[in-house]
C-alpha cells in the first residue's frame, strides 16, 4: 500500500563509534529516531542520563555568529536577477569539497571583521542621523547672521533664541516695551509653526521678561557648544554628511571584499548545524557507561540497504529488530510510484493518514489533475505553465526538483493543455481574430474541441456536477473498503455503503422521473432509497441503548443528505473558474483587437496588452485553480473517508540550508 510499512529497530553500539555512527545515520536519511525513554520496556538495563534537550551553547553561539555574518554579507552581494533571487539557489558541491572547506576555513576572523564593519557602519549611520537632526533644527535660523558664540549672555544682557506661536509678536513687543525699553526682538524666520526670534534684554528685567515670554507661549531653543553662524554650521553639516557617506561607502567596499567568504560561511553553517542536530538527537538515546541505544523506525523498503550499510561499516554495533507494541503507532512515510509522488504534498499539507487507513494520495491524484485543468481550460496557458515549470525544474533541478509542489503545478499545466484542447481554449478565442491565411489553426482547434463552454453552458455544468458526484462516491467507496479491511463489516454496511446506495438511488429516481432512464429503474431506485435511509436511521448509532434517542440520532444523521447536495453543488466552481479564464482571455483579445487599429503604435500597444493581460490571467486563474482544487479535496473529498492523525516520518538527516552535496550515498 501507499503507506510504507515500518520496521522498529534498536541500534546498540559502543560509545567509541557514536560520532561516526550518527554522521552515517544522517547521511542514510532512513531512521526516524523515537525517544528511547518513552515506551521502552527495559528501563532497568539502560537509562537515559540526561533530561530534556541537550544543547551545546558554544556550538549554538558559533552557528548564530556565522548566521549573522552571512546575513550581513548578503546585502553586499551582487543582485542575481529576479528568479535566482527568489529561489536563492543552493551551493552544489561534492563531499570532498565540502569537507575541504570545513577543514580549511576558519570563520573567526571573518565573523569578527563582519561584526566590526557592521558596528562601524551602524555608528556612522547614527552620526548621520544626529547631524541631520541638528541641521533640521538649524534650518529656520539660517538667516541669522550672527555666530552662536556671540549670542552668549554678557554681564548686562541676556540673549534668548526661540519659537513664538504665530501672529502674536507685535502684541509681545508692545507688552515688553511697556516694561522696559531695553528689549529688542529680531524676527529671524516666519514659519507655519510660529515666529523664530532672537530676544535681547537687560538683565535687570530678566525675570519679568522671562515670565512675559512664558505667558505668550515662547519656547526657548538652545544650541550649546556651537561655533559659527547657523549657515556655517549648516554647511559644515552638509560636508560632514558627505564625508560620513564616503566612509560608509568605504566600509561597503571592505565588506564587498569579504563577500567571497560567504559560500565558505554557508558550508560551515550547514556543517555545524548538522553537528548540532546530532547533539540534540542524543537526548533521545538510552545510555549506559559504555554503550548507547538508539530506538527508531526504518521504512521496510530501506531496511536491507540500511542494515547492510551499518553492519558493513561498524563492528561494535548490534542492529536489533524490535517488536512493535500495541499502543505504539509507527510514523507515517508515504511511498508511492513516481508519477503519484508529487501529489503526496496535497496529503501532507492536510495531515498524515493514520496507520490504519489508506494513503489518499493515489486516489486524489487523477482528480486533482483533471480539476486543475478544468479550472484553467486553456491549452495555450497550459503550454506556458508546462514550459515554465519544465524550464525551472531543469535549471534548478537540485533545489526545486525536491519540491513536490513544483511537479504538481507542472502536471496541472499538462492537464490544462488537455482540457483547453477539449474546450477549444487557445488564449481564449484568439483564433477568431486570425487572418484567413491561418484558417488551418481554426480547423485544428475544431478537430480537438469536444464542446464549447460558451455555447454549451449546460454541458460544462453537467461535467462539473458529474465529476463531483463521482469523487464523492469514490470517497465513500474508499471508506467502505477501509472498514472491511479493518474487519468492521457492520460499520461498512451501515454507514458508507448505505450512503453510497442512497445517493446513487436518488439519482436513479431523479433520472427515472425525467425519463432519461426507463421508468422501472425508478421503482427500484425508490425501494433502494427507502431501504438505505432506513438503514441509516436505524443503524448509524448502534451503541446508544435508548432506542428513541438512537433513532433520533439516526434521523439527524439522515438530514446530512443536504450536505451531500451542497458538496456536489460546490463542484460547480470548476465550471465557474473555467468560464472565468475563458471570458477574461476573450476580453484581453477583444481589447487587443481594438488597439491594433491605432495608427503607428497599434502593434506595440497590442503586444504589451496581450502579454500583460494573458500573463495576469494565467497567474490569477492558476492560483484560483490550485486553491479551489485543493479546497474541493480538503472540504468535499477528504471528509468522506479520511481520518488522519498520523505523525509524519522525519528521518534523522542533515537538513542543509545552503548546500547540496551531490555524491550522496543513496
Amino acid at each position: 500500500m501507499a503507506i510504507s510499512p515500518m520496521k522498529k529497530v534498536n541500534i546498540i553500539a559502543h560509545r567509541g563509534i557514536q560520532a561516526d555512527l550518527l554522521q552515517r545515520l544522517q547521511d542514510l536519511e532512513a531512521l526516524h529516531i523515537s525517544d528511547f525513554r518513552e515506551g521502552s520496556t527495559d528501563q532497568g538495563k539502560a537509562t537515559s542520563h540526561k533530561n530534556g534537550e541537550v544543547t551545546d551553547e558554544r556550538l549554538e553561539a558559533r552557528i548564530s555568529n556565522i548566521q549573522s555574518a552571512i546575513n550581513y554579507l548578503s546585502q553586499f552581494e551582487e543582485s542575481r536577477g529576479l528568479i535566482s533571487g527568489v529561489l536563492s539557489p543552493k551551493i552544489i558541491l561534492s563531499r570532498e569539497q565540502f569537507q575541504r572547506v570545513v577543514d580549511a576555513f576558519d570563520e573567526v576572523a571573518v565573523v569578527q571583521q563582519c561584526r566590526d564593519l557592521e558596528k562601524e557602519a551602524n555608528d556612522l549611520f547614527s552620526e548621520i542621523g544626529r547631524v541631520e537632526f541638528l541641521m533640521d533644527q538649524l534650518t529656520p535660523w539660517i538667516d541669522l547672521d550672527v555666530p552662536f558664540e556671540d549670542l552668549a549672555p554678557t554681564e548686562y544682557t541676556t540673549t534668548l533664541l526661540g519659537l513664538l506661536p504665530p501672529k502674536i509678536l507685535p502684541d509681545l513687543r508692545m507688552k515688553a516695551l511697556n516694561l522696559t525699553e531695553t528689549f529688542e526682538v529680531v524676527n529671524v524666520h516666519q514659519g507655519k509653526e510660529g515666529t523664530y526670534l532672537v530676544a535681547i534684554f537687560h538683565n535687570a528685567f530678566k525675570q519679568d521678561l522671562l515670565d512675559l515670554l512664558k505667558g505668550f507661549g515662547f519656547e526657548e531653543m538652545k544650541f550649546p557648544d556651537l561655533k559659527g553662524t547657523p549657515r556655517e554650521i549648516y554647511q559644515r553639516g552638509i560636508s560632514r554628511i558627505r564625508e560620513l557617506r564616503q566612509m560608509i561607502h568605504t566600509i561597503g567596499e571592505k565588506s564587498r571584499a569579504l563577500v567571497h567568504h560567504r559560500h565558505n560561511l554557508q558550508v560551515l553553517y550547514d556543517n555545524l548545524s548538522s553537528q548540532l542536530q546530532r547533539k540534540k538527537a542524543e537526548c533521545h538515546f538510552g545510555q549506559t557507561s559504555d554503550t548507547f541505544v538508539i530506538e527508531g523506525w526504518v521504512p521496510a523498503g530501506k531496511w536491507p540497504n540500511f542494515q547492510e550499510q551499518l553492519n558493513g561499516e561498524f563492528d561494535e554495533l548490534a542492529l536489533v529488530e524490535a517488536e512493535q507494541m500495541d499502543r505504539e503507532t509507527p510514523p507515517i512515510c508515504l511511498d508511492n510510484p513516481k508519477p503519484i509522488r508529487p501529489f503526496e504534498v496535497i496529503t501532507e499539507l492536510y495531515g498524515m493518514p493514520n496507520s490504519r487507513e489508506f494513503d489518499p494520495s493515489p486516489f486524489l491524484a487523477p482528480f486533482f489533475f483533471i480539476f486543475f485543468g478544468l479550472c484553467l481550460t486553456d491549452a495555450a496557458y497550459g503550454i506556458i505553465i508546462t514550459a515554465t515549470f519544465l524550464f525551472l525544474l531543469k535549471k534548478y533541478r537540485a533545489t526545486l526538483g525536491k519540491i513536490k509542489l513544483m511537479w504538481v503545478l507542472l502536471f496541472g499545466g499538462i492537464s490544462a493543455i488537455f482540457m483547453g484542447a477539449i474546450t477549444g481554449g487557445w488564449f481564449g478565442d484568439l483564433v477568431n481574430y486570425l487572418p484567413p491565411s491561418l484558417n488551418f489553426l481554426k480547423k485544428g482547434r475544431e478537430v480537438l474541441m469536444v464542446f464549447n463552454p460558451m455555447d454549451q453552458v449546460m454541458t460544462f455544468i453537467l461535467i462539473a456536477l458529474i465529476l463531483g458526484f463521482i469523487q464523492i462516491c469514490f470517497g465513500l467507496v474508499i471508506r467502505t473498503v477501509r472498514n472491511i479491511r479493518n474487519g468492521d463489516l457492520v460499520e461498512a454496511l451501515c454507514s458508507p455503503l448505505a450512503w453510497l446506495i442512497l445517493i446513487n438511488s436518488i439519482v436513479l429516481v431523479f433520472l427515472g422521473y425525467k425519463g432519461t432512464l426507463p421508468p422501472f429503474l425508478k421503482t427500484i431506485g425508490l425501494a433502494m432509497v427507502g431501504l438505505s435511509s432506513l438503514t441509516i436511521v436505524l443503524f448509524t448509532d448502534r451503541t446508544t441503548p435508548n432506542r428513541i434517542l438512537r433513532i433520533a440520532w439516526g434521523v439527524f444523521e439522515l438530514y446530512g443528505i443536504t450536505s451531500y447536495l451542497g458538496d456536489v453543488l460546490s463542484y460547480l466552481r470548476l465550471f465557474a473558474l473555467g468560464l472565468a479564464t475563458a471570458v477574461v482571455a476573450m476580453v484581453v483579445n477583444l481589447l487587443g483587437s481594438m488597439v491594433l487599429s491605432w495608427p503607428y503604435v497599434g502593434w506595440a500597444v497590442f503586444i504589451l496588452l496581450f502579454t500583460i493581460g494573458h500573463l495576469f490571467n494565467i497567474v490569477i486563474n492558476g492560483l484560483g485553480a490550485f486553491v479551489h482544487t485543493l479546497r474541493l479535496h480538503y472540504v468535499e473529498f477528504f471528509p468522506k473517508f479520511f481520518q488522519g492523525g498520523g505523525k509524519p516520518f522525519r528521518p534523522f538527516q542533515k537538513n542543509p540550508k545552503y548546500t547540496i552535496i551531490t555524491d550522496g550515498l543513496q
Partner: protein
Amino acid sequence: MDFIGYAIPFAGAAIAIFLAGFGSSVGISTAGQAADGVLTEDPDKFPSLLILVVLPGTQGIYGLLGGFLIMFKLGLLGGTPVSLNLVQSWQIFFAALPVGFASWISGIHQGKVCAAGVAMAARRPETLMKGVIYGAMVETYAIFGLITTILLLWSIKI
C-alpha cells in the same frame, strides 16, 4: 415593444462590476495591511503571504466576468447589438445582482479571514495552506453568486 436602449442592462453590468470590485479592494486591503505588518518583521515571507493577500481579488474578477457576460449578451463585444424590450432589460439587470452582492460582501469578509490567516502563518508558517482553505470557503458564496448570474443570463431569451 420598441427598443428602449441599454440603460437598464448597463446599470446591471455596472453594479456587478463595481460592487465586486469594491468587495475585492476592501478585502485585499485588509489582508494586505496584515501582511505588511508581518513583512516588517520578516520580509522573506512575501511570496507565501502573497497568496493570502490576493485571494480576495477573485471576487472582482467574478464581477468583471458578470459585467462582460452582460455585454456579450447584448452583443456589444464582437457581435451585432440586440434589441431589447423592457422586460428583458430588467431581467438582465436582476441577473447581474447575485454576482455583485455576493462578491461584495464575501470579498470584504474573505479579506478578514485572510488577514487572520496571515497572522496565523506569521507565527506558524506550516499552517499557511489551512488559512488559504478557510479563505477559499468564504469565496464559495461568491462563486455561487456568479453561477446564478450566469445561469440567469443564459436563460433570458432575446
